[in-house]
C-alpha cells in the first residue's frame, strides 16, 4: 500500500545553508493513519508540514503524496486537495463562518447550492450551530474558531489533512472535546492525518503513531505504547515522563477512591 505521505531523507536549509531547519528526515504516514509530530519549538515541525503542500520546498530529498512526487504536482491544485489547519487557525476575518468554510470549494468552482449544502454538512460535522454560519470570526469563541478551522480544512473532501498545533490555544476541556471530535471524524471519513503538537499527552491520546523531532531530525517514532514503554534515550524519555507520571497518579487516585 502506498503511503499517504512519504518524506524521504528530506533536508531544508535557510539563508544559504546557515540555518538548518530539517536534517535528513524520513517519515511515512500510512493511509488512514493519524500521526502526531511532537517536539520543542524550532525543531522543524512546521517546516515539515509546509513541505507537504509545497508552502515550502525541500533543499534535498523528496516528498511524495499518495505515491507521487510533489515536485511534479501543480502547487495550487495540491493545496486544494490537502486540508490544512493552520497554526493560530488563520481564519479570514472579513469572511463569515460559511464563507471561510466554503473558500476552497469556491476556488474549485463548486456552484453556490453545492457549497451551501457542504457548509451545512460541515457545520453539523464539527458540531457548530447553524446560526453561527453568518457570524464573523471575531464573534466566535476560541473553541468555535478552531472548529471552523477544521471545517474549512475538510470542506473540499480531502483524503489528507495536516494540522499545525490546531488546538494549542484552548482551555483543557475544549481541547479534549475538539480533539476527540476530530479523531472521530478522522476514523469516520477515512482520513490520513498529520498533527503537530507540543503537548505529548494530546499526542498519546489521539495519535496512532508519534514522531519525536529535535533540531531538525526525527529522533524517535512509534506507537504511543512503544514510546511510553521502551527506552529511547534522553529527550524522548523526558517527554514521556510527564504523561506517564500523570497516568500513574491518576490511576492511583482512582484506586484509592475505589477502595474507600
Amino acid at each position, binding site marked *: 500500500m502506498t503511503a499517504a505521505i512519504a518524506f524521504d531523507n528530506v533536508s531544508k536549509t535557510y539563508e544559504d545553508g546557515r540555518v538548518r531547519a530539517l536534517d535528513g528526515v524520513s517519515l511515512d504516514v500510512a493511509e488512514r493513519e493519524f500521526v502526531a509530530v511532537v517536539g520543542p519549538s524550532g525543531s522543524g515541525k512546521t517546516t515539515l508540514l509546509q513541505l507537504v503542500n509545497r508552502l515550502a520546498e525541500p533543499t534535498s530529498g523528496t516528498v511524495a503524496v499518495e505515491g507521487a512526487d510533489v515536485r511534479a504536482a501543480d502547487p495550487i491544485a495540491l*493545496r486544494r486537495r490537502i486540508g*490544512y489547519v493552520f497554526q*493560530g*487557525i488563520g481564519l479570514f*476575518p*472579513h469572511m463569515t463562518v460559511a464563507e471561510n468554510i466554503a473558500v*476552497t470549494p469556491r*476556488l474549485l468552482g463548486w456552484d453556490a447550492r453545492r457549497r451551501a449544502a457542504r457548509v451545512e454538512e460541515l457545520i453539523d460535522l464539527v458540531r457548530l450551530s447553524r446560526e453561527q454560519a453568518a457570524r464573523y470570526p471575531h464573534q466566535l469563541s476560541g473553541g468555535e474558531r478552531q472548529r471552523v478551522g477544521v471545517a474549512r480544512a475538510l470542506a473540499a473532501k480531502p483524503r489528507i489533512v495536516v494540522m499545525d498545533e490546531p488546538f494549542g490555544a484552548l482551555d483543557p476541556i475544549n481541547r479534549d472535546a475538539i480533539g476527540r471530535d476530530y479523531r472521530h471524524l478522522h476514523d469516520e471519513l477515512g482520513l490520513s492525518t498529520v498533527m503537530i503538537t507540543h503537548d505529548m499527552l494530546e499526542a498519546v491520546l489521539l495519535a496512532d503513531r508519534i514522531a519525536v523531532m529535535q533540531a531538525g531530525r526525527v529522533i524517535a517514532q512509534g506507537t504511543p505504547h512503544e514510546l511510553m514503554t521502551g527506552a529511547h534515550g534522553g529527550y524522548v524519555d523526558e517527554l514521556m515522563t510527564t504523561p506517564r507520571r500523570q497516568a500513574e497518579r491518576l490511576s492511583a487516585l482512582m484506586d484509592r477512591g475505589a477502595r474507600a
Partner: protein
Amino acid sequence: MNGGYAGPVADALRLLPGYLGSHVLVSVTALALGLLVSLPLAILSAHRPALRGVLLAAASLVQTVPGLALLALFYPLLLGVAALTARYIDLKFSALGFLPSVLALALYSMLPVLRNTVTGLVGVDPAVKQAALGVGMTPRQSLVMVELPLALPVIMAGIRTSAVWVIGTATLSTPIGQASLGNYIFTGLQTQNWVFVLFGCAAAAALALAVDQLLALMENGVRTRARARTALGALGLVLIVAGALAPTLARPHARYVVGAKTFTEQYVLAALIEQRLAAAGFSATRREGLGSNVIFDALKAGDIDVYVDYSGTIWANQMHRDDVRPREEVLADVKAWLAGNGGVAMLGALGFENAYALAMTRARAQALGIRSIADLAAHAATLTIAGDYEFFARPEWAAIRRAYGLNFARERQMQPEFMYPAVAAGEVDVISAYTSDGRIAQHDLIVLADPKHAILPYDAILLVAPQRAGDRALIDALMPLVGAIDVSLMREANLRATGAGASPAQVARWMWEEVEKKK
C-alpha cells in the same frame, strides 16, 4: 449700485453652477486618473521594496512642490508637447485649462493613495496570507479575495485624503485657465471683494467635506457589508457629480472665449467685451485670473479668442525691447510685430494707459508749481517718494532718474494700499502709481507729465487670436471699444469695481452707458 452684501452674494450664487461644475469635473477626472495610475503601482510595488522606495520618494517629491507652481509648470510643458504633436503627428489639443489641471492634480493625488495602499497591503497579517496560500489561492486570488479587502479601510483613508487635497488644490487651477471655485478666490482677492473670497473658500470646503463623508459612508458600508450604506454613499457621490455637471454640459458651447489677467481692470474689461459680444448676438465665456505669462501664449494658441493687454508689456516681455519710444511709435511697432510673429491681430488701443507714473496730490503740486517730472527735479532734494516693492528696482525708475536727474531726499517702500493714504495725508510727497488706478481720482491726485518720454507707454490694446483675425463679425462687434475708454473713465470703473459694492459685470454695463453718452 445696490449697496450692502445682497449684491455680491447674489452675484456669487449666479456663478456657482458654472464654477462648481467645472470644479467637480476637473477634480473627479484628476482623482480617477490618479487612482487609475497609483492603485496598480501600489499593488505592484507592495511586495517589491526597491520599487516601493523609488515610487514613494517620487510621489513625496511631487508633494513638496507647491500646488500653484505644479499647476503653472504643466502649462508650458503641455504647450511644448502640443506644438510637437501638432507638427509631427497632426494632433492638436488645448494646453490651457482642463488638461494641465487634471494632470497636475492627478500627480498631486498619488501620494496618499500610494502610501496607504502599500501600508495596507504590507500590514495584512502574515498568518492570514499564509492561510490564503494554504487553502489553494493563487497570488492573484489572495490579493483580490483576502489582501485588498483587508487593506480596504486603510486604502479608503488614502483615497479620502487624496479627494480632499484634490478638491482643495483644484482652486489653484484658475490661473492656468480652468474655471473652478478658485475663480471666486482669485477674483475676490484682486477686487478686494471679501464676500467672493469667503464664498469660494466655503464652497470648496463644503464640497471637500461632503465628498469625504460620502466616501467614509461607502467605506463603512463595504467593511460592515451594509449594502444600503454603500449604495447611499455611492448615490450621494453620483448625485454631486451629476448635479454639478448637468448645468455645465447642458449649457450650449460658447462661441468666443474672453481672457482676463489677475487684476480688477482686467475683470471689468473682460466683462465689457463679453457684453459687447452678447449684444452682437454671440455667446461668450470668460477665462479669468490667467497668469500674465500664460495669457499671451493662450491667445496665440487659440485657447482664448480675445483679451486686453498693454503695449509696454508686449514690447518688453514678448519683443524683448528695452528702449523707450513714444506712445504712437510703440503701438505701431507692437501691431506690426504681432502680425508678423504668429499673427495675433491688434484691433487698436482702447484709449487709456495703465503705466507706471509719478503722482502727487493736486494741492501739493499746485503749491510747488509742479506739472511734470521735469518740474519735480528742482524740488526733489527736499521731497520723499514712496513706491511699491517692485518700483525702485524696475527699469522705469532708472530711466526716469537718468532722464530728469531726480534725487529724492528719501525713498520709501510700502504696500500700494498704504501708499495712497500716505500721499493724501502728506506723509510722503510723491508716489509711484498705476495711471488707470481708481485711487488716483479717489484721493484727488495728479499724474505728472513725462515730456522726455522716459516711461514706457502701456496703452491698453485689444488683441484677437490669429485664427479670429479674419472674423469680421467678431471684429465689428469689438471695434466700437477702440478709442472709447479714456483714463478717467477707467479709473472710475476700477474704483467702482473694488470692494464688494459692484460686480465687474455691473461696472462694465455702467461703463458702456458712459461711452454711449459721450457719442
